[in-house]
């Protein structure tokens, strides 16, 4: 089959690879219908995640049709149209039983690698380096899905492929950020990053009852999507000072909840952004936490900050003093998608949650290297490039 392979830093290539096979009884093989780029892929592409191997198949956010199933699979039939959670979780360990699916004890066959990096291992993830299991990704014609009864969900009739594909990762990730940050009625919520995950976090905050939601970014087309498709307010950090602006918007208090949806390659024109760029290039810090710092400084006393953006290692000048002295609650996680996907599909079916506008560029899988270039450089207003194998 054809698949998009990472072949080195900022190098991608369509290659012919072996078809996946059933390896465990709980596996299914899915014929991929749509597979989307994700901002976190850019960290892999750019070499910021050191456990990538030339030849790895990328992609973790996808939908497809079940074409083969293992003998232990009971919830799915051949021909089912399913959305698959990007994180691989067994459903039976303590973490899965407590709705912390991305922390699954059994979903990552390479636990020693993340244990060396982080002390403990999260679950596995498709197409997301050997630290997260070394699973082949979804930018391919077919993909093997382990623990299919736990991680694959039937797509309701009437929900389009273009809407459903974002139930795999962007929508549950955003929803989790708003939910676990404790958004409640009357809150003011600020979201850093107007990509797919940031937009979904903003929409989730609104549906969870937030009184006011403000999204911060610098790309006009993304900020326009936030206003027109999500219904939240926007701030462009290139033409306004974010901290005083947020204080002014909130009567001097600061947002109740701050959600960071940017990750380790944050951009910022100011001195702190330049500082982080230099330190990261010199490998004196692995990640650029510019947006996290700002979220912490912006949050109201006693408020909460949720880090949704992907970080892999170490950061510098982390404002721990602000966290402590303002009494903030700081949380983070890879997405516990299995916890949220069923209700998100229902919301998609009713039209309450719309996502298809994120797919600004849909193209054949053969054009995926071009799609990633557009996505990385944000050319032609690209929010997400989505591939049709």
């Amino acid at each position, binding site marked *: 089959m054809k*698949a998009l392979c990472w072949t*080195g830093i900022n190098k991608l*290539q369509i290659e012919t690879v072996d078809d996946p096979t059933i390896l465990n009884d709980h596996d299914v093989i899915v014929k991929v219908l749509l597979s989307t780029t994700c901002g976190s892929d850019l960290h892999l592409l750019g070499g910021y995640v050191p456990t990538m*191997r030339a030849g790895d198949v990328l992609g973790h956010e996808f939908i497809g049709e079940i074409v083969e199933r293992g003998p232990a699979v009971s919830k799915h039939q051949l021909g089912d149209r399913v959305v698959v959670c990007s994180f691989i979780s067994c459903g039976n360990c303590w973490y899965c039983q407590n709705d912390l699916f991305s922390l699954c004890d059994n979903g990552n*066959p390479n636990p*020693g*690698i993340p244990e060396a990096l982080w002390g403990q291992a999260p679950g596995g993830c498709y197409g997301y380096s050997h630290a997260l*299991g070394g699973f082949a990704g979804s930018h391919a014609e077919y993909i093997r899905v382990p623990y299919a009864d736990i991680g694959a969900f039937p797509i309701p009739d009437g929900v389009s492929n273009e809407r459903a594909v974002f139930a795999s990762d962007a929508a549950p990730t955003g929803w989790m950020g708003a939910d676990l940050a404790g958004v409640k009625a009357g809150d003011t919520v600020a979201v850093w990053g107007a990509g797919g995950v940031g937009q979904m976090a903003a929409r989730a905050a609104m549906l969870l009852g937030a009184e006011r939601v403000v999204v911060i970014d610098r790309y006009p087309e993304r900020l326009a999507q936030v206003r027109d498709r999500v219904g939240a307010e926007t701030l462009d950090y290139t033409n306004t000072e974010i901290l005083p602006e947020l204080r002014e918007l909130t009567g001097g208090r600061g947002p109740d909840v701050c959600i960071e949806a940017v990750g380790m390659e944050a951009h910022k024109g100011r001195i702190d952004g330049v500082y982080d760029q230099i330190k990261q290039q010199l490998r004196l810090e692995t990640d650029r936490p510019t947006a996290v710092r700002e979220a912490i400084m912006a949050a109201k006393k006693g408020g909460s900050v949720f880090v949704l953006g992907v970080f892999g290692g170490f950061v510098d000048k982390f404002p721990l003093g602000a966290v402590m002295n303002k009494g903030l609650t700081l949380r983070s996680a890879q997405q516990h998608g299995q916890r949220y996907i069923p209700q998100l599909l229902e919301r998609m079916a009713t039209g309450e949650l719309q996502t298809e506008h994120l797919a600004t560029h849909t193209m054949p899988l053969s054009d995926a290297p071009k799609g990633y270039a557009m996505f990385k450089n944000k050319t032609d207003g690209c929010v997400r490039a989505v591939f049709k194998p």
Partner: protein
Amino acid sequence: MPKLTTSALTIVGGVAAALTVDHLLQKRSVQNKTSRERWRAVTVLASPDAISRDEEYPAPLQAVIEFLDVRTSPAPDGVSTELRARLKQTKSAEAGIRKLTGLAPESAIRASLRDAKQIVETGEVLRVLPRPEGHRPATPGGVLVDLAEQRAKG
């Protein structure tokens, strides 16, 4: 040099020296327990009966059981079980487990515990190979990733 600066440097130097001594003492204390003596453990979401039936453990652990001391005890949550293993304190145990598994004893113990836990919790050991993959050039970075993956269970 101003007196204040000298005092500050003295304080900083003193603190650094104290931290170094403390670190070395802690290191010595940690080294008192050898790797061979240490118990490796996993917590399994199951009762002790589900882990060991008629003194028979799941196959990955049973395969190396002759070289190990194994214990189970209830976890504090009242539902899970802590499953522990360490190498028997004999020379033949180390050589035997190395010969059987091809792994260092610590790695072999960790891998057998993880796999035993998976079998109890999910019924099988999750596999990832063979997987679809493109051309794998033998770059230095790639070789390191391959080595890391080969040892990633231990």
